[in-house]
């Protein structure tokens, strides 16, 4: 696949979903501003650490991942039939098409996560950049898992939804608890664990999406 074809697919998909992108960013900005950031007075440092992390991470992880899943589902067949037909009839392998098609919702979700973080920053409760990276890893992984629901039906579709939800929960638990409980070894252990797990899930989900696209029957 040429970089030009990749750019063409991604830009066509982003243009087709520009309204959704604006709504996603607007929603992320509003929720980022209004999300409560207060933590009750806690004396135990570990409990305080967990509470702080959960306050910082719950919003972006759960809300922005939901946005990512919603935008991923919009890539399903039927919504932009002319794009689907053109992409399917182009001489591209399933894995190449999967990468290009996945990039658009991933970029939308990434932008929404960034807007959320910016809103937190402007409201005076900005999380450290490492937390943004943790939330982003969760958002990307769950978006890629949800993409599999667009090319499946019945039980397989339901399974993809459940898997996307489970991905968010796993990433959140790892980011909050593994990070908090690994303070003795440094935050790097917790951060790395979450990033590696999300990376593995995203890789497997993208491969599966490519396989599904190669086998997909449009009729």
């Amino acid at each position, binding site marked *: 696949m040429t970089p030009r074809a990749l750019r063409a697919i991604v830009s*066509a998909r982003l243009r087709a979903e520009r309204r959704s992108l604006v709504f996603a960013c607007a929603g992320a900005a509003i929720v980022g501003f209004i999300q409560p950031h207060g933590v009750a007075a806690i004396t135990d440092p570990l409990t305080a650490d967990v509470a702080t992390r959960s306050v910082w991470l719950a919003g972006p992880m759960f809300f922005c991942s939901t946005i990512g899943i919603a935008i991923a589902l919009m890539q399903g067949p039927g919504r932009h039939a002319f794009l689907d037909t053109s992409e399917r009839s182009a001489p591209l392998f399933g894995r190449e098409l999967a990468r290009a098609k996945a990039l658009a919702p991933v970029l939308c979700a990434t932008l929404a996560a960034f807007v959320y973080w910016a809103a937190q920053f402007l409201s005076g409760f900005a999380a450290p950049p490492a937390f943004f990276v943790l939330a982003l890893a969760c958002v990307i992984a769950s978006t890629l898992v949800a993409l599999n629901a667009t090319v499946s039906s019945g039980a397989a579709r339901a399974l993809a939804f459940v898997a996307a939800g489970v991905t968010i929960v796993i990433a959140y638990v790892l980011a909050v608890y593994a990070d908090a409980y690994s303070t003795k070894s440094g935050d790097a252990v917790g951060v790395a664990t979450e990033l590696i797990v999300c990376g593995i899930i995203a890789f497997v989900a993208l491969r599966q999406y490519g396989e599904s696209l190669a086998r997909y*029957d449009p009729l």
Partner: protein
Amino acid sequence: MHILRMRDVAYVRRGETLVSSANLDLAPAQRLTRLCSSAREAEALAMMGAALARATAGSVTIGEYDPRVQPVHCKRIAAFVPHDPLPLSQIDAARYIAYRAALWDVDPARARKRAQELGEQLDGLHEAFAYPIVGALLPAPQLLVLDRPPSAFVPQILRAAGDCAVLIVETEGRT
């Protein structure tokens, strides 16, 4: 040598047989119209002819390739024009041509020139129907598969297709 060959091809979707035992031979530069009993059958047959759908039974060969094994090679040979018009409210013609040229790696300047030539040949046909045909012909395919094209403009479309083999899939009773 055949550019498209179908032997005892069947297509079954969710227990419903859309195509049963279709046989078809299309030589390079040949034009063939195939009548189908329903729109769904026409769509299924056209998509199998362009390597977009896989036959449930029988064999399809596009050029020398089997779409089940080498779909990418088949898609380099065959171009598909869907029945539905291009939604011009979602994408304008120039952008669509640039998009199609990028997907098939056609030089942008050459694509614009070719699109203009094809557009002139398809003069009179509404842009929403003309541009999918222009887009399909941009990479100079060897086979053009048309799913229920606007019947009144078929001679014009065939002229625009030049020496490319054309399979027109129509429904019975449609004029």
